Structures are given as C-alpha cells and as structure tokens.
C-alpha cells in the first residue's frame, strides 16, 4: 500500500524514527523545534490548526498582522515624518529579506533606534507598533515592549547595575527594550553606575542582536548631548526618529478622537476654548505642555467636570450626556 509519508507528529515518533534510522539527529532537532513552536500557540488555535491546516496559513496570518500594524500606524494623527520613517524601515527589512532569499548580499539589520521628542509625542505608541511590525515580519520572535527608565536599570552598589540591567534585557528578549529618558544614564559622570548600564546594554545589543531591538528615547536636546558624550553609541543606533510637537489642529483632532471613542462631543464653544488654551500653552514653550498627554488630561478632567455639572440637574437629555461644553474645559484651564 502506497502511503504519503507524513513527518512525525509527536516527540516520541521522532525518537522512534531516529532509532529506526529514518532521521538523522540534525533532522530530529529541526522537527523538535517545529513541534515546540506549535506547542507555544494558544491551545484553541492549536486544535484548529491540527484539524484544518489550510485555514490558518501562518504566512497569511503574519501578513495580516503586518497590515494591521501599518493600518494602526496610519490611524495615528499627525506624525507624518515619523510614519514615513517607519515605512522606510519596513521596506528596508522586507527588501533585505527578499535579497537574502535571492542569495544576494544583505546589509546587516541593525534596527536599534533613537527616539527624540518631547513627552506625549507618540514615542511609546510608535515603539509598540514597531514591535508588532517586527514580529509579523519575523525579525523578532515576540515583538512585545518592555518599558524602563534609569531606576529600573541602575543599581545602588557595585555589581547591582549589571544584574538589574540584564534582568530587564532578559524580559525584553524577543521584543523591544524601550528606555525612556535614556540620557539620564549618562548623568553623574564617570563614577555613576549609569555607565555600567550603558555598557551592559551595548553588550546585549551585540550578543543578542537577533532577539532584541533597543530604543533609547528622550528629549531632543538631551539625547543629542547624550550621543555626543558617548560617540560609540551613535553608530550603533542607525535609526533616529524625531518626534515633532503636535500642531494645535492635530491636538484638537486627537481630542476629538479620544472623545469619540468615549462617545462624547465638544460643543463649538468648547472647541474654541480648547483651541485658545492649547495655543497659549504652546506659546509658553514648556515642553511638558502642548502634547497628546496633556490633551488627554484635559479631556479626562472635562469628562469629570461635565459629570459634576450634570448630576445636580433634575432632567438630563441624551444629548446633554454627550456634550462637553465650554464650561467643562474652562475649569481645566487652571489645573495642571
């Protein structure tokens, strides 16, 4: 009876085949690996894959995840220059992968990045999208994001720092390690343990380069200074992305989107009030002001103010429940 030969489907079968001389040890390890990967999928998916292997083509699923990540990127308000760069990186990775398939020389894929920009300009959000993108493209096994800052990396006594830093690196393996206010690692001069953290990170970037993408983020000017004082770093971070401050119109769009998701709406007066307030804050030049996080605070505050305003009323219409008026915004303008 002629029967199509199926590769072994359980570990025990692999071992039997090995004993029978139907597999070499190298082949056996390769099958073990694919079995392990199957096992890692959530159980409900695994059963589905077993029953109808064609329905969930992993290639197709990956393409969909990539498309979804890029769609989420496009949905972000503003950030045009950032989006362009993300697409550039995506195209670069894809072409390098195609070249490698065609057995052409490839550029080494160093994907470590520097994000420069004020707080609340979308750095973490974009980092998350990068993680999903790299996972979908097969550059990183997991694509998750581990966020940390100086306190998570730098220890209190000699030897403690390397240990803490390595722990963060371990957690980030397979994904992205995102270090906020990275320049603070260089403050405190030569004797500061921050230097040790930088050294440990640089080592991990080399040793684990296929499993880890490092993103250093922080204020533009401080990051520039940080790179100047650590000249070795610049070349290790080929991708540098500038996150510009949002324009007032973009901030209002962001506010609209946030409110829409929560099923609220701004009245015309509220919108004007918000606009004036944002303009005024942008002019003040304080980098903490005039970003998406501030807008979110204003909106959340306004939602609470609206609740207080409405709760005393005897009669509340559906429309009232949705509208954020000038008065709600006004109250926020005094609060930070």
């Amino acid at each position, binding site marked *: 009876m002629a029967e199509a030969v199926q590769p072994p489907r359980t570990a025990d079968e692999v071992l*039997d085949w090995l*004993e029978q001389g139907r597999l*070499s040890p*190298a082949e056996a390890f390769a099958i073990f*690996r694919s079995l*392990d990967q199957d096992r890692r999928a959530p159980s409900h998916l695994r059963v589905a894959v077993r029953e109808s292997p064609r329905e969930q083509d992993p290639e197709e699923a990956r393409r969909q995840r990539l498309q979804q990540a890029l769609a989420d990127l496009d949905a972000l308000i503003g950030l045009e220059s950032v989006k362009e760069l993300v697409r550039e990186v995506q195209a670069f990775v894809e072409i390098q992968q195609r070249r490698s398939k065609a057995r052409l020389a490839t550029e080494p894929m160093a994907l470590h990045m520097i994000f420069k920009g004020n707080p609340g300009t979308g750095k973490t959000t974009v980092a998350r999208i990068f993680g999903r993108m790299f996972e979908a493209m097969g550059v990183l096994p997991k694509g998750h994001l581990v966020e940390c800052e100086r306190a998570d990396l730098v220890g209190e006594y000699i030897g403690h720092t390397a240990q803490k830093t390595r722990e963060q690196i371990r957690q980030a393996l397979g994904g992205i390690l995102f270090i906020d206010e990275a320049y603070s690692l260089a403050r405190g001069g030569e004797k500061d343990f921050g230097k040790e953290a930088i050294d440990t990170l640089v080592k991990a970037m080399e*040793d684990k380069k*296929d*499993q880890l993408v490092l993103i250093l983020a922080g204020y533009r000017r401080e990051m520039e200074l940080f790179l100047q004082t650590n000249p070795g770093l610049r070349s290790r971070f080929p991708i540098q992305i500038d996150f510009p401050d949002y324009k007032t119109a973009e901030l209002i769009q962001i506010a609209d989107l946030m409110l829409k998701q929560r099923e609220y709406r701004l009245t015309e007066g509220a919108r004007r009030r918000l606009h004036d307030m944002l303009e005024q804050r942008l002019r003040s030049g304080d980098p903490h002001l005039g970003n998406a996080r501030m807008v979110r605070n204003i909106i959340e505050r306004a939602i609470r103010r609206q609740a207080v305003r409405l709760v005393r009323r005897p009669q509340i219409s559906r429309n009232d429940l949705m509208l954020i008026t000038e008065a709600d915004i006004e109250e926020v303008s005094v609060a930070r």
Partner: protein
Amino acid sequence: MKRCIVIGKTNVGKTLFVLQFAAYLGADRLEITFEEPGGEKRTETLSVDQAIRQLSSQEPHQTRCLQSIRLELPVGKGVKRFDVVDTSGLIEGIHGDVKVRKAMAQTLAAVRDADLILHLVDAAKAGERGVLQAVGDVDYQVAQFAQMRDAYAILANKVDLPNADVGVEKIRQEFSGHVIIPISALHRRGFKEVKRFVWRWI
C-alpha cells in the same frame, strides 16, 4: 531535580568536561548513574581519576548511554543539588549501527526534558580546519532548537590547544546571539564562567 545536560558531537570532550566539572565543584567521589537506552540503570562510585581513566577516551562513541552525576552548588546558605548528564556524541547523518541510533534517540529525549543545555564544540578543530569542519548541521540545529530556551550555552572546548583562539572567534561569529564560554576541560579553564552560568539556571 534540575537536569543539566551536556551534548555535542563525538570527541568534543563531553565526558572529560563533566567529570572535571564535577571535580571542580568539589566532588571527590563521583556517584555515577548509568542509564542504558533500554532503560536499565546501574550506579558506580568512582574517584575522579578512576572515572576519567575508565570513561573518557580518544575514540568516538565511548559513551553509549546517559551518565549522570549528582552535584551540589552553594546557593545562599544552603546548597542546590542538580544532575549533570553526559550523553552519547551526536553524529551527522544516519548511523549504521542500531545501538548508536538508540543512544542517539536517548540523548535527544534527554535534551528535550533538560532544564539546562550545555553544548560542547571543538574550538581547536574550528581554528585548525575551519568552523564548517568542526561544527556541523547537527550543531546548528541544536543551537536553533535551544534558541527558544534561555538556559543554553555553547562551550568552546579545547582552548588549551594551538589555534583554538581563532576557533573561538569563528564560533562566536557563527553562533552570535548565543552565550559562548571558551573552556578547556583538560585544564579546567573557563569553569568559573560555566559555574556562574549553571548557577543562574538551577
């Protein structure tokens, strides 16, 4: 009980490493459990010197079964016990002798269940004859298989021999992304690093 398994191609020095490492950790009499591919077990107690004389050799396939030794590492105020398991050498391709194949299957089963994998490669051979001669498909497959685990290190053995430095460099390039520890099983070099690595995972 955590199991630390030592694998590698034939004649890379697995058995010598296991015995020397046991001695390095302070064991003077080794209680060695031999587990045949069929499942029979027997235990022998040997001194380190006796064990090296009896168990390790220049000939390939000296080790045809799993040989495990229980070891202790100081952890905090107490000790942690773990088994270090010596295995039959991995071969390329399919071996003609069913006994070797059975030993191979036993090794792979043990690798699958291991908590910690130490993968020995021959750095001297890599330096002398090129990395492609010294490591084979099976080594790459092991490395890829183990990539999904944290507790995996490549030990570049025989650094006492000439040309081994070149070999270690080549191995580092070839297996970048993995933990690589240069050692000499014969002279117990690099054992401190190995101990630290083992300590982290048991």
